[in-house]
């Protein structure tokens, strides 16, 4: 199902398909007409996506059919081998971890996984991790340090799960610990925000040397809906809240929160998952390449300073 602003694109695509099947059935050459419409389609798609409002980007970031973390694990990495469990509480399906090869190097990967359909969404708790998920991340950070393996994380979560058990098991404590543990990695770490970067639950695996973000992903301190409910006392004000929060990739690049925007295929990653995966693979490989010369101490210092200097204020005279 297309997003509401994709309707004209979708309609045009349908017209092209109709024309092609008509031409085939009737054995007539409509190549010129089709080419004309395809040209129009490309322009329309480019224009639509070049002018997305922030709220529309939120919808793209959450679009059904958008590649999920597992799609990137399969497409970007070789020999992905999943490792389960947090060694304390259980195994949280919202966080997928494991070992893999990226080019010529072994890496530890940690990813937040939403579902690709309703059934998987329920199994993955819509990508909302419990404390167990963060504990899994923490123990994988330990593993990475011990074997001096670079760490790659994929961020895609509405936020850490707000529930009774999650609170009792110290959701806040494990997020804080995960932030701290990741900041202390003696190996190169790269994070990619692929969909939704929902608040502290996202940052918990986002304390990397290089933070990349897909063009239509969003990363925010609070969801537009919750922000609207609190600040406007009206969840219907989510579009205004999305504007106010400045949560798109260009916004965050400008604020220094991310280091690089990874382009999506025209029409968004959901239109061309393979294209999105290829772009992420290239960007991740070059991000690690750029960190290759740094030793343990330099990586630690670079990462610490990167986050230490974030913020905007003025010094009083």
């Amino acid at each position, binding site marked *: 199902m297309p997003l509401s602003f994709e309707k004209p694109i979708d309609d045009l695509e349908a017209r092209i398909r109709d024309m092609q099947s008509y031409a085939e059935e009737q054995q007539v050459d409509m190549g010129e007409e089709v080419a004309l419409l395809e040209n129009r389609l490309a322009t329309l798609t480019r224009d639509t996506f070049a002018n997305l409002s922030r709220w529309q980007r939120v919808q793209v970031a959450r679009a059904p059919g958008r590649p999920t973390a597992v799609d990137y694990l399969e497409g970007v990495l070789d020999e992905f081998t999943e490792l389960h469990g947090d060694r304390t509480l259980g195994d949280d399906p919202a966080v997928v971890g494991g070992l893999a090869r990226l080019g010529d190097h072994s890496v530890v990967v940690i990813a937040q996984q939403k579902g690709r359909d309703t059934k998987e969404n329920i199994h993955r708790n819509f990508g909302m991790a419990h404390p167990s998920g963060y504990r899994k991340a923490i123990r994988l950070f330990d593993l990475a340090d011990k074997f001096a393996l670079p760490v790659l994380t994929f961020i895609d979560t509405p936020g850490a799960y*707000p529930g009774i058990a*999650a609170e009792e098991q110290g959701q806040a404590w494990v*997020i*804080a610990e995960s*932030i701290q543990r990741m900041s202390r990695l003696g190996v190169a770490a790269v994070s990619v925000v692929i969909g939704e970067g929902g608040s502290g639950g996202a940052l918990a695996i986002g304390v990397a040397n290089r933070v990349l973000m897909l063009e239509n992903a969003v*990363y925010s301190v609070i969801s537009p809906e919750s922000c609207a409910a609190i600040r406007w006392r009206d969840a219907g004000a989510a579009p205004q809240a999305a504007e106010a*929060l400045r949560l798109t990739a260009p916004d965050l690049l400008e604020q220094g929160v991310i280091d690089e925007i990874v382009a999506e295929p025209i029409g968004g990653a959901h239109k061309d998952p393979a294209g999105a995966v290829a772009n992420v693979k290239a960007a991740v490989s070059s991000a690690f390449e750029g960190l290759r010369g740094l030793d343990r101490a330099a990586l630690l210092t670079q990462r610490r300073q990167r986050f230490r200097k974030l*913020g905007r*204020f003025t010094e009083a005279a």
Partner: protein
Amino acid sequence: MALERWFRRQRPTRGDEGSPAGLWLKCPSCHAQIYRKDLVANLYLCPECDHHERMPVDARVAMLTDDGTFERWSGHILPVDSLEFVDTEPYAERLAAVQKKAERPDAIVTGAGEMLGERVAVAVMDFSFLGGSMGSVVGEELARAAERAAEEERAYVVVSASGGARMQEGALSLMQMAKTTVALEALTERRLPCITVLSDPTTGGVTASFATLGDLVVGEPGALICFAGPRVIQQTIKQDLPEGFQRSEFLLRKGMLDDVIPRRELKARLATYVRLLRGAPVDRERAAERVKVEKPELSRAAVL
């Protein structure tokens, strides 16, 4: 009907919010009528039931540091509205109004002092200032205080009180969680203690960063301490929450806090922690000390 509802809305609510001159308050716990002066003189504890009311920052600093030793560090950096955030009112205007009222630039006070003779740096968050929310200035003050404490060989004591990250500052407020966390490394490297006191309320991004990363983490009695607030959880699971859920005593039982410490004993206990962690002998007399506040003569309290 409408009139009846109007009358119901007029019933007195708790506390002195919005009316600093309010002379009489109602204890939210035991419902006793309390004379405001009694509450202030009693470390903001209910004279009847010891309920721990929220404490203003200056009173908290005075309570925790030895007389005449506190030297303020904070206040030299100012918040900016870099997103030009506007909801029902511009953030810049909200900020200006609360700065004027609080007479400080943002929701925190930091500084150096002595705590029963122990050299400490303290940071106290101000819940009355935009819900104690953490934006760039609060994060930077916390980070600078940690780093300066390390330079000056001081233990770091932080009293949190916050609704979480300041959403009007967008993703940069979220990043303060990472910033405050990495700033604590300065203390870790010098083996200086960081002790966090979670006061009512401590929630969201503050709980999920520096506040729970103290070497020791303690709560004040009855304080709400959580990641997601009770209302959010209730909306998510659509069930009633257990009695005492997310309060200090509950979290102590769940293993999340080192202890829950009554306010009268807080200063002495913090000083003891610092001494023990730094391997110094404990001065028994001082360790037993309570903040000397006589229970005030009650001015007609509970009569009403």
